[in-house]
């Protein structure tokens, strides 16, 4: 069992968990992830590690509530435990002095891009960060990103904060202004990563994306997370999760990520139906409120 020491709401539907996992904390490097399973009936889901504290033996993860498992996770708080947390998995990000690096974080992807941005800064790179969110409330880690960036650009889809637009608008401006860019790292929704790849392809800027396919074991055993890279099957869990954006077949990724959409919808519906009971149990057992649930106000 892996104990949750802290749970903090960062934005509506987005929570940071501090989890006791000494072995993982000791080994984690930027870009790596864990696979967690909440309870005996649970599925295994991959979540990128935001940061870790080897001395305290803890790791931080930032989770957006999207499906049943992540909503259930949001019902947990300090003192609760997860059945399984395994990692750190995947290859760490390549950290070296590239020159100027643009780090693009979309939505909750910002939390995943953050440790790599920080490490790239420490390695002596000039770091330009572009973070985007749907609206003001959902802008994540602005302070943290600012601290590790030479320049931080923020966009919101609806213009409720900073500049209205998408992260790709900012990236396009940088490219068009002739900014020297040695590497772009993009972490976020697949559509965003694909758009970034299409922008940097003609400019021939080396671009790395962190892929998020469906996984089970996370150790290369099942092959469920296979992605098509340069026409060949690669396993995101052991060969990735970071790949050359210009070689990734994003259509196949989108198609494969939709494989269980119907089941996911059904899981979520049943979970929502039990919402009252879930909240009741959460209050009784954990003394915390459930985070945003579908149809909920929060």
């Amino acid at each position: 069992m892996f104990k949750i020491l802290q749970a903090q709401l960062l934005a509506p539907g987005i929570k940071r968990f501090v989890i006791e996992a000494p072995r993982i904390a000791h080994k984690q490097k930027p870009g790596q992830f864990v696979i967690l399973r909440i309870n005996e009936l649970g599925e295994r889901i991959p979540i990128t590690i935001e940061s870790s504290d080897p001395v305290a033996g803890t790791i931080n993860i930032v989770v957006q509530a999207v499906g049943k498992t992540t909503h259930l996770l949001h019902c947990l708080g300090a003192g609760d435990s997860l059945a399984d947390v395994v990692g750190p998995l995947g290859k760490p990000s390549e950290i070296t002095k590239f020159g100027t690096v643009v780090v693009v974080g979309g939505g909750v992807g910002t939390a995943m891009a953050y440790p790599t941005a920080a490490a790239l800064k420490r390695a002596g790179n000039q770091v330009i960060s572009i973070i985007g969110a749907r609206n003001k409330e959902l802008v994540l880690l602005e302070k943290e990103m600012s601290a590790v960036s030479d320049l931080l650009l923020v966009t919101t889809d609806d213009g409720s904060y900073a500049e209205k637009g998408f992260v790709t608008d900012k990236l396009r401006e940088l490219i068009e202004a002739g900014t020297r860019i040695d590497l772009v790292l993009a972490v976020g929704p697949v559509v965003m990563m694909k758009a970034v790849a299409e922008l940097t392809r003609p400019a021939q800027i080396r671009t790395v994306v962190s892929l998020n396919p469906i996984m089970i074991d996370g150790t290369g055993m099942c092959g469920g997370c296979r992605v098509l890279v340069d026409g060949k099957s690669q396993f995101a869990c052991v060969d990735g999760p970071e790949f050359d954006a210009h070689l990734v077949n994003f259509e196949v990724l989108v198609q494969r990520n939709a494989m269980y959409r119907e089941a996911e919808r059904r899981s979520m519906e049943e979970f929502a139906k039990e919402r009252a009971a879930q909240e009741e149990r959460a209050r009784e057992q954990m003394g915390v409120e459930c985070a945003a649930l579908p149809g909920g106000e929060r």
Partner: protein
Amino acid sequence: MTPPAARSANPLTLKERMKVPRQQMPEQEAALRSANFTEVNLGYSPELARQEALRCLECAKTTCMQKCPVGVKVKEFVQLIVAGDFAGAAAKIREDNVLPAITGRVCPQEDHCEAACTLGKAKNVRPLGIGYLERFVADYEQRMGIRHLPKVPPTGKKVAVVGSGPSGLTVAGDLAQRGHKVCVFEALHELGGVLVYGIPEFRLPKQIIREQLDYLRDMGVEFETDVVVGRTVTIDELMGEEGYDAVFIGTGAGSPQFMGIPGEHLNGVYSANEFLTRINLMKAYQFPRYDEPMVDLHGKDVAVIGGGNTALDAIRSSLRLGARKAYVIYRRSEAEMPARIEEAHHAQQEGIEFHMLTNPVEFLSDGKGWLAGARCVRMELGEPDASGRRRPIPVAGSEFDLPLSVVVIAVGTSANPIVQSTTPGLATDKRGYIQADANTQRTSRKGVFAGGDIVTGSATVILAMGAGRRAAKSIDEYLTSGAWEAPAA
């Protein structure tokens, strides 16, 4: 033929023994079992077991034992069954095999002990049902709660075992019996490796594995799940700050191979490992009670590509999950199928259709990202290849389309790189498998041993256990003497 041993309790003459037919394994009816996950074979009753045991000729030269990868003393345990001492028979098996209830179910005895049995050499006489008898005494021991725990004093030595599959569990059991402290590290959340994620309930019930694990726990073996050695902790850290005196690597065959043909990324195309893991480990067939989903197979046409035990496990599972048609597509003929004969026979009884000498060349899309079928080509057999089997050659112009909703690819595995790539100085072969001495299982790293599929490539449970047994013997020697002789490369 040699005369029976003097102390035999067997009242039958050799001639009489040869006339007793091999006792059939009671099994669940095919029509019934193809719709459930309950075990197919039901096991011998004590009467059937004694009747079968009476057939043993008690040869002086025990080729059955010699052919057993772990060296089970077949004649001796069978004699104890004849004498009615089932607990004694179990103890006798345990001297050489710490997982008898598992091997009694999944070991291909027809390739080992039963292939060597003298009875089977006679015309129209079938070999002794050694596997069935092993299963019987193992189940008896389990039901009666009998334990034979090591009585040796602790040696103070600590061994880390990487992977809780058949080779790792064998190493753990054998070393615990010699008084060494053993901790087994498992990457998944459940112990058992391929026994748990790979082999389905109807062939090897999870409860049986759990009981065998409890036995090992009672012997003092410790287990830690959720540890991916190479990522969570390295071999060097285990032997450094964690203070282990030796490490055994039994991480299994690992990564599934795909075929590299068009359409492999379509939704509905699974590797056998993923398909079986969703079912066996994640219980996806009980969705939504369990969270992990899988494609609903009810009324669908499903095919498995491959002819091994894994292929049959996958396709027989799909039938139990409601598939309308279930096919095995295999590029060679039935004679070359690596699967156990008993399992192929069971599959046929259950209504699985076999497309022999057939190979897919493309998976067809429905235009919306989902599988619609397989374009296949007929094959014919040419000259024998490196494996000694006749090489399949495509027949020009023989393409045909088979409509399918789900395809499971079971064409083998390749070495998982995690441990090798994070352990400096650990020698591997060209394909990435760990190099280990065939007798001592020593690797190129001092104090590090390896065995099972990660050394040999995909093989069987019993061969992995054989490697585990050799490794345990040689780890014990190393821990006692401290002497290390690097294996010849």
